[in-house]
């Protein structure tokens, strides 16, 4: 229970129908010094709000200290990824290691049968007998993309009470049940960086030094166009903040941490025919066969695109899009769908350059994904 309206309603609906609910809020962060924002889900107020929901609905609530796991499994990889010129997706890791890792391992302590969260997603038993992860009824809120790294075994005991509801209905339930969070604003950013200033957070709050050295801004031919203040400030596909006057808008094409270089180019140069992933987390009993047609989603707001899958020795896959996709960003999740069902997901290792048929070895050392 994050203190937001979604997890509050998920828990409250289960309690209302008579399930024996225990609310748990993961303490991910030291709250003594946390910046306070009404949108943040990681503040003391949010914990109090979660507790108030539990009191109102008459179930127990505990705060569990998960700071160490969060630091080791989410925050450190987040930093390492930025330092390696990637754009990490910490929500995927948090779901994998905290909500469907740490919390699952705690279920036996209280004899819990199921783990419910306020995610917009559905679980459904497939014809193969295994529990599958599916997109939510409310497509605009669907969070299956953020859940693609959860261990397959955890799905067997996962419950998503909001999977068939839309946001308006959820707020309606909250109001009906008298939960004070019913009109709480949506959180837009990472919960631990409520103001959205990731670089500022890493540099000022965590003392990160990697990726902060100034370096060249170059075009794809290596021509120097300007100077940047550290690759930590950039992400693939970014247009703003380059500070370069050019006849056509320039976008970040790639980050090269070994040389502290930011490579930029015109919009069409962002397009890529495919990508290679880190080892996949399959939410299927068997990985799909080579050449299987899937829909691939490469960032949270990306409309899934048709593609073919080629499994690799590494456990990852090579994805070939039917039509080139823009801004394939290393570090973001690539999640594969068959209709509504999530087949699996992994972090994007690299994009495949246009006109290059065989994958090259990665130019930069990969961050360590636990």
């Amino acid at each position, binding site marked *: 229970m994050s203190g937001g309206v979604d997890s509050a309603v998920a828990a409250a609906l289960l309690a209302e129908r008579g399930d024996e609910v*225990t609310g748990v*809020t993961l*303490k991910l962060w030291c*709250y*003594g010094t946390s910046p306070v924002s009404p949108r943040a889900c990681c503040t*003391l107020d949010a*914990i109090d709000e979660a*507790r108030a929901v539990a009191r109102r609905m008459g179930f*127990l609530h*505990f*705060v*569990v*200290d*998960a700071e*160490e*796991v969060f*630091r*080791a*499994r989410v925050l450190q990889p987040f930093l390492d990824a930025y330092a390696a010129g990637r754009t990490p997706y910490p929500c995927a890791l948090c779901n994998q290691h905290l909500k469907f*890792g*740490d919390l699952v*391992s*705690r*279920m*036996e*302590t*209280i*004899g819990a049968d199921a783990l419910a969260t306020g995610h917009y997603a559905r679980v459904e038993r497939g014809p193969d007998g295994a529990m599958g992860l599916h997109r939510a009824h409310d497509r605009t809120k669907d969070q299956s993309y953020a859940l693609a790294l959860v261990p397959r075994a955890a799905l067997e005991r996962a419950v998503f009470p909001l999977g068939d509801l839309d946001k308006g209905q959820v707020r309606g339930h909250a109001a009906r049940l008298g939960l004070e969070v019913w009109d709480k604003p949506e959180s837009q950013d990472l919960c631990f960086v409520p103001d959205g200033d990731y670089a500022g957070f890493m540099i000022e709050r965590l003392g990160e030094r990697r990726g902060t050295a100034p370096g060249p801004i170059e075009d794809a031919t290596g021509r120097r166009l300007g100077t940047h203040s550290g690759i930590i400030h950039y992400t693939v596909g970014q247009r703003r903040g380059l500070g370069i006057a050019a006849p056509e808008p320039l976008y970040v094409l790639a980050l090269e941490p070994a040389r502290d270089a930011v490579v930029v180019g015109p919009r069409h140069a962002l397009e890529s025919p495919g990508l290679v992933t880190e080892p996949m987390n399959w939410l299927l009993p068997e990985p799909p066969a080579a050449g299987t047609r899937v829909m691939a989603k490469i960032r949270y707001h990306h409309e899934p695109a048709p593609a073919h899958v080629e499994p690799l020795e590494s456990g990852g896959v090579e994805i070939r899009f039917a039509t080139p996709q823009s801004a394939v960003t290393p570090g973001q999740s690539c999640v594969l769908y068959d209709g509504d069902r999530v087949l699996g997901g992994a972090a994007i290792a690299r994009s495949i350059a246009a006109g290059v048929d065989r994958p090259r070895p990665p130019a930069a050392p990969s961050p360590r994904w*636990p």
Partner: protein
Amino acid sequence: MIYLDHNASTPVRPEVADAMRSSLEDLHGNASSLHREGQRARAAVERAREQVAALVHARPSEVVFVSGGTEGDHLGVVGGAWARRQEGRRIAVSAIEHHAVHGAAEVLAELGFAIEHLPVGGDGVLDLAALDRLAPDTVLVASMLANNETGALQPVAEVARWAHRRVARVFCDAVQAVGKMPVDAAALDVDYLALSGHKIGGPKGAGALIVRRDAPLSPLFRGSGHESGRRGGTENVPGIVGLGRAAELAARDVEAEGARLGDLRARLERAIRAAVPEATIHAERAARLPNTVNASFPGARSDTLLMALDARGVAVSAGAACASGAVEPSPVLAAMGVPRDLAVCAIRFSLGRTNTAAEVEAVGALLAEAVRAARGATPVTA
């Protein structure tokens, strides 16, 4: 539920509830009012004052009613030291004091006082040798009588002997000791002694600070002459009546109940060792309260173990919670030199009047199961 958290709060005794109920129903007057309704309320308050005084061998006039342990700690520490600010602006507090005493010291620090912390040994007992290193302008030394987490008894009489050879006064937080062992404020020779109602079968929101006749006190709440000018505010008559009745019962029962609890604790420690042989009992070598066992179960984190025991019907304490409500490693165990990986696995069991031998025997099996479950949940970080 097997309730083993009596150091946090212990059930109100039925006789206390009766006394409070009739006080709520019958005593309408303000104890400061001059008419007969006021005088009836005053009589009830003064009777309670005698009852509290008798429990700790003080004079009734030395009893100041307050709202509980935290206020008693603040009034004694801040009020005692501030009254002597002309003589020195330094106090010493033992490292294992209750948060409320550390909080009171913080107030003094903001008022310009220097705060010294007195170390404890590995057995959780104050290191008296540290007293000799204190500067001569130390005007107050605070040492609790029994530690709330480990139960370890502290050498308060020795502290007082040292202090009174100098200019220092002694504040003693006796909140956990009172009712569990005989407490004699006169024999301890302390200047200020705090106790709390809800730790002895009385109500929450009522406590007392014993202020020795010759001890100076600068009141925190002023503007009215309540409690002989030592604590402003209309008397909490039902709370005070309940506290008095609880004190009377505690004085009567303390010896027999202490012996009974000591026997239960021995059983509990045997059960813990049988269930989890690798458990460590903290402050084991120290003289302790008869009701308190603080033990670490390696590999089972306190917060997880607390949830696991709760789910199995056993209520314990995992130490203090931080502002978020998450369990924090105990500063008391840290001061004793307990390694952090053991300190984060500590659980406090505290017995009380409602516990039976059968309950204590039942804890063993539940504990073994809860520890096993909690160990399975302990996250393995890279």
